[in-house]
Every structure is written in structure tokens, then in C-alpha cells.
């Protein structure tokens, strides 16, 4: 499992104004949507900086059932991504059940959203 600081791989965070609190946040995965070139590029950047990435095609069901649900049953773990708003909506609501929340959100062109979901403790730093 590859953990690392968020800011190096996710420059949008500075624009969201939450860089300081997230600089030290370990990420479990970076989520991207294979249908959007910008999202693929985002994942490539994250991968180069040592982040584990996971691709979806709009639907988060497989990501949830085969990966995130299992990980989050062990305890909260931060994730970040560049996806459409529907995927973020699902992940946001699922994260709430694990005492996590969206702590950074930036609108991108083409209906995409860059975001970070992190445990309550991170949000309260």
C-alpha cells in the first residue's frame, strides 16, 4: 500500500485553500475516470508521484465493493480523485458512514470535480 502526501500529486488542492491541513494526509487511493482525458492525466500525475490509483467509468460499484468498502471496514482512509459529480456524490455519502467527509472540492471543466475525502480528524486540523 502506497501512502504519500497529497499536495505533491494533487496541485488543485492549493486552489481549494486547504493545502496546509492536507499536506501531511496519507492517501489510500487516487480515483480517476477513464472516460475523461483530464482525469487520466490526473491519475498519471498521481501515479508518477507514488500514489496508488483506481480507474472507474462513471460507476463506482466495483470500486466500492471490491476495494473501498473492505478498506474502510478497517478504519477511515483518505482518498482523492478527479471524477464526475455523480461518482463524488456516491463516495461522499458512503464516506459519511465511516466518519469521513469531503474536505476539498474544486470544479474542473467538462463537468469534472477534483476532491479529497478524509477522516473527520483531518477536517478538524
Amino acid at each position: 500500500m502506497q501512502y504519500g502526501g497529497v499536495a505533491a500529486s494533487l496541485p488543485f488542492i492549493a486552489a481549494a485553500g486547504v493545502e496546509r491541513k492536507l499536506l501531511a494526509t496519507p492517501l489510500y487511493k487516487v480515483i480517476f475516470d477513464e472516460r475523461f482525458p483530464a482525469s487520466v492525466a490526473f491519475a498519471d500525475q498521481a501515479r508518477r508521484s507514488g500514489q496508488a490509483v483506481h480507474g472507474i467509468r462513471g460507476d463506482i460499484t466495483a470500486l466500492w465493493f471490491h476495494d473501498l468498502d473492505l478498506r474502510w471496514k478497517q478504519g477511515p482512509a483518505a482518498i482523492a480523485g478527479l471524477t464526475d459529480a455523480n461518482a463524488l456524490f456516491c463516495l461522499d455519502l458512503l464516506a459519511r458512514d465511516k466518519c469521513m467527509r469531503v474536505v476539498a472540492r474544486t470544479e474542473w471543466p467538462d463537468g469534472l470535480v477534483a476532491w479529497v475525502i478524509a477522516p473527520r480528524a483531518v477536517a478538524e486540523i
Partner: protein
Amino acid sequence: MRLPPGLNQKDFADALRQLEQALGKEWVFSSDEDINLYRDSYTPFWHEAEEPIPSAAVAPDSVEQVQKVLKVANAFKIPVWTISAGKNLGYGGSAPQLSGSMVLDLKRMNRVLEVSDKNHYALVEPGVSYFDLYRYIQEKGLKVWIDCPDPGWGSLIGNALERGGGYTPLRDHFDAHCGMEVVLANGDVVRTGMGALPTSKTWQQYKYGFGPQVDGIFSQSNFGVVTKMGFWLLPEPEAYLLGNVTVPRRDDVHQLVEVFAYLANSKIVDGTTSVIDNTAFGPPDPQRAALRVGGSTRALEDYIKQKDLGYWSLDLPFYGPTKVIRAQWEHAKEKFSTIPGVRFRDVDSHRFPLSAADLAKIPNPVPLGVPSLTTFAIGGPRSQGHMWFSPIIPMTGQAILEAQEVFEKAYRELGSPEGALPGFPVWSFFARAFVIIYFIPIEHDIEKNRKNRAVFRSLVKTAAERGWGEYRTHTAFMGDVMAAYSYNNHALLRLHESIKDTLDPNGILAPGKNGIWPRAMRRRA
């Protein structure tokens, strides 16, 4: 700090301290940041003062902790709004009916207590989602299916208590339950049906027990906190088959539905389907839109013929042994064949168990008992959320045509929320009657939301005048819908209120849920 109604800051702080002692500080939430997570993601009161917002939330881990929460709530008269997974989107999400209520979040009570693939049942806690139970069954290799709603992230107990529906023969989720455990407002723990027998071996196998069956009063109600519930499961079928029937003319709907009702009530077809009006659905088409507003029936029939579609389309799902469901489909075709111009098509078929690779290829696995979130990835009307308008209508072609006429007229008079005439999908989630599930959008626009709330209320009244009542509704309209069930000067509501006053004299449990208010709040409501 947001306060419960009627409570001062000092008393609320005292109550929160007692709750922290009972549950642990980390499971009592009162900061705005935490509380905001319990707001309705699809609130129709976006940026309006009427939006119901909780004062706090607590997440107990056990029946004993639920009892402690209710003890504190009774002592301080704090209204409590219970949620299981809080995913009741379109019907209010996790937000309370009454602003300032404290959310009783049962997500940590997420244990699968028992699954039998010999007698085909499960016993679960409220925090168990469809995904959780599906995973448990898959990991243990049990030969049973769950029945999931769409989407599958909700709680089995929450969905069943709200009388939600799925797709398989066990699609009526409340009807498929067998036995429950309930914590009453005074902390007493009741087990229903055979569960009242301390040595019972059949709690999840025989529903009735002895004496009055009380399970129903805990559904769509505020009479107790359900902490365990049994569900019947479907033995894994050998196969699944989906056939499709289309008929060419508008008036064919009468015979189409009459035959379907015969097949459904005979259990020859035993799964959810919908009667689709092909003139109302499909990609945007100006010609079709114009015909639906001002065109004749004949012109619409000709249009649909040019598209090589039937005017009406009906999928028929079959579950069971291959030979049996093939025979059922053949029998269904024979019955429908009396309709001139009827066409049949084999749509889909599977044998079970499916490999993971085969399952991954199925676009919508929900009718096969596999939970999914795919519905959120399907492009639909653009909005910031929605409310579901969902009246029950008779299972007749006449009722479908009448509902179309009545609701489309109402939309024209009120101004359609989407600027176009709606198609009303008609579903068979429940036996013997159809339910219309119609999407009314929510926007980040106060005026549009006000208008759409007015549209919703008008539709409720219009439906009631025709004898159609909602099977379930958004918290914003629970009073409106309950008011429509008014036979004999609201005798049913008065009975509910009598039960409420007896079981919950302090009125702490979900005030206003389904239009049922405790005595002290009744005049205000």
C-alpha cells in the same frame, strides 16, 4: 449550537454530556460540520429557513446503548429521528421531519446475525446494507439471494420499514420480513411473532406468533426503534429469463394489463416489471413531443409504428428452473397472443451461479439480487436532486390511461417542472396494484423549488380525488399525504395518534413522521 425545540442551551449541553458518557464522546456529534452530514442531500428547501436540520446525532452500537439514548431523550424531551443507513434519497435522506431533532444513527449496529441457506432467511441489525449482506453470503458461499432496491447502499431494515421494493419474487421488502426486535420509547425491548417465545426456533420462519400481529405499526411510523429484523431470502434459482411483449395500439393497454394481472396474480410472472408507454420515453424527439401535446392517438400510433416499436412495452421476468421458466414464458406468450399485432422478444437469460467475469458483463445486476450503485452513473434529467411522487393505482389499463390523462393535465395547468410532459413509469413493485414513480426535480433555485413543492402538493390532492394514494413520500409532504387518507374524519390518523400517545407519551420518537405528531405538537402541526 443548534438546539432541539423547547430546550435551552444548558439542558442540551447536559443531555449531550450524558449521551457522551453512555456512548463514548466520539459517537456523539454536535458540531455544525458533523451535523451538516445529516442534512438531506436532495433537500427541496435549499437555502430556505424551512430546511429541517438536526441539533445533534448519536451512533449507538447496541440495543443497550439505544435504550440509554432514549432514556436521556425522555428525560430532556429531545425529539429523536432514527436512521439506519440514511440513504432514503428522494424521500428525505437522513434529515429529520422536525428541525432540531437529534439523529439516532444506527450505522454501527451492522451485524449480520444469521443467514440460513436451508430455510432461506437472514437476521440482521439496522446498519447492515444490501452490500453487507450480499458480501456475507458470497464469502460463505451460501445458495441464497437477497432482493435489492435500486441503489443497493441502503439498509435492509430501513428500506423494509419504509416499505421499499426490489425486483425478485421477494421484492416487497416489508412483506418479506419475518420477525423484528423493537426498542419502545420507554426502553422496553419487544420481539414480535415467534420471537416472543424465549426458546423460539422459528422466529424467522413463521411470521405471526400468537395474538395480534403488531409488526405493521412499526413500519412508516414513529412508535419504536427497530433493532433487529428477519428477512426471507430466495433460494438461488437455477435460471433467469426476461421476455418482452409489445402491442401496437394505445387501447391495447387494457388487454395487455389484464393478461399481465392474470399472470402476476397466478405467480406465473413473479418479479418487478413496468408498463412502458413508448410514446413517452426515449431520446429527445421534437416530433414525438409535438404529437404528445397536440397529436391524435392515431398519429402517435403511426409514429411509433414508423419507429418499429410497440405503443406499449412490457418486460416479463421469470426466476426458477430452466424448464419451468421456459414453459412459463411460453404460457405467457399464449395468453398475450390474442392481442392483434403483439410481438415477443427474448431479452436476456442467465443460469446460476454466474462467474465473476459474467456478472461483471451485466449492465444492471439488481434484478439478479446483486446490489449496485450503477443507477447514479446513468445519465438522467439534470438537477440537484429529486423527490419521488409515487401514487398507487389499480392494476388495469384503464387506470394507466386515466393516470396519464390526469397527471399530464395537472402538469400543463401547473407548469411542468421540466418544461415537457412527463412519462409516468408504472411499476409492479407490489402485488395486485401498480405504483407510479415520478421524478420531480430539486434545483439550487429557491423559486423553482417552491414551485415544484406546490406542484407536488397539487399532485397529491389530484391523486387523492381519483382514489390514488402515495405509498411513501418525502418528509416534506408526509402531512399532506396522511391528510389524504381521511376516511371517516381521519379515523386512521386518529388511531395512529392514540397508539403514539400510549407508546410514546413524551413524543420523543420522530415527531411528524408520516404525519403522526405527538399530542403536545399536534396543534402546531
